[in-house]
């Protein structure tokens, strides 16, 4: 979950691994505050969300290699349309940070808008607005690219 969220958000395997390690180390240092495995999961998810968003903002200040150039990780198992899924992941990666994280928490982590609102400390209406706009944008971009 932690690595996967970071990877989908940053679209950078090395960066995602580094960030995920940092988050687990943070957990280790604050371990005495953790009350249960469920608390740990929630804490980890929240930490990786906020750290990922911060990381992207830092990268904007010091540009790195283009994220689109990073090769897609190898697909595993049988998937209906690997090309389509790879393309969708790229499009998700092109969304603005907050919207991108909202989409990942909804469709990767299966959280509902109220849970996302709490995780990212934003109003539920803002979460829903991000979802609505992001889906419309993703659909439209996918349609354009399929047609072209």
């Amino acid at each position, binding site marked *: 979950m932690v690595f996967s969220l970071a990877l989908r958000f940053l679209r950078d395997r090395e960066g995602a691994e580094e960030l995920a390690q940092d988050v687990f180390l943070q957990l280790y240092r604050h371990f005495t505050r953790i009350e249960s495995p469920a608390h740990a999961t929630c804490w980890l998810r929240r930490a990786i969300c906020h750290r990922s968003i911060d990381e992207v903002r830092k990268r904007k200040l010091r540009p790195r290699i283009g994220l689109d150039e990073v090769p897609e990780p190898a697909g595993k198992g049988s998937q209906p349309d690997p090309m389509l899924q790879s393309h969708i992941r790229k499009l998700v990666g092109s969304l603005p940070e907050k919207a991108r994280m909202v989409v990942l928490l*909804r469709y990767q982590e*299966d959280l509902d808008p109220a849970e996302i609102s709490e995780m990212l400390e934003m109003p539920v209406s803002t979460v829903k607005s991000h979802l609505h*706009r992001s*889906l*419309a944008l993703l*659909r439209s971009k996918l349609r354009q690219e399929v047609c072209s």
Partner: protein
Amino acid sequence: MKKPFLLFAIILPLWGQGFDFKSLDKFDTLTQHKTKVTLDGDLLKLAARFLGGDDDKETASIKSLVDNLKGIYIRSWEFDRDGQYTQADIEPLRVYLDREKWSRIVESQDGREFSEVYVQRLPGDRFGGVAIISAEPRELTVVYISGVMNLSDLDKLEGNMGIPDIDLKKASKPPPKNKKEDEE
């Protein structure tokens, strides 16, 4: 010419003693063309989660309806000939509904087809459930929906909600063979 079908919809309350849906399982052996849906508790919540609806008004409308439901039960059988069931088979259900104080708001007959719609009334303009009985000579359908609804929810149930129509008979039959494959 298509013969009329008898459809039974049976309303089965889930609370209180509850009606035993299994008493209708005997019809399963009389036909291969049947539709069964049982969505209650966690399964209904899971279905609601996967509805999405984040950018689709119609799906959001379905979701807002489903979020307040406790269970949805559908049983439908299509028989090859008349007389596969009798009124006596479904009378216990009517008796049960009557005992649980459900109100029959629709009772209509058209030749050999008849329909009954029941609701469980709650204070105000709300309902605790909807059940439908539709009967034809060769088809029996039971619909039971449990959960708090209002009049607009009932309208939604009768409306399109963006769900395309489906021919139940086609849905219950195996898909046709691909002609091209046969020719090859």
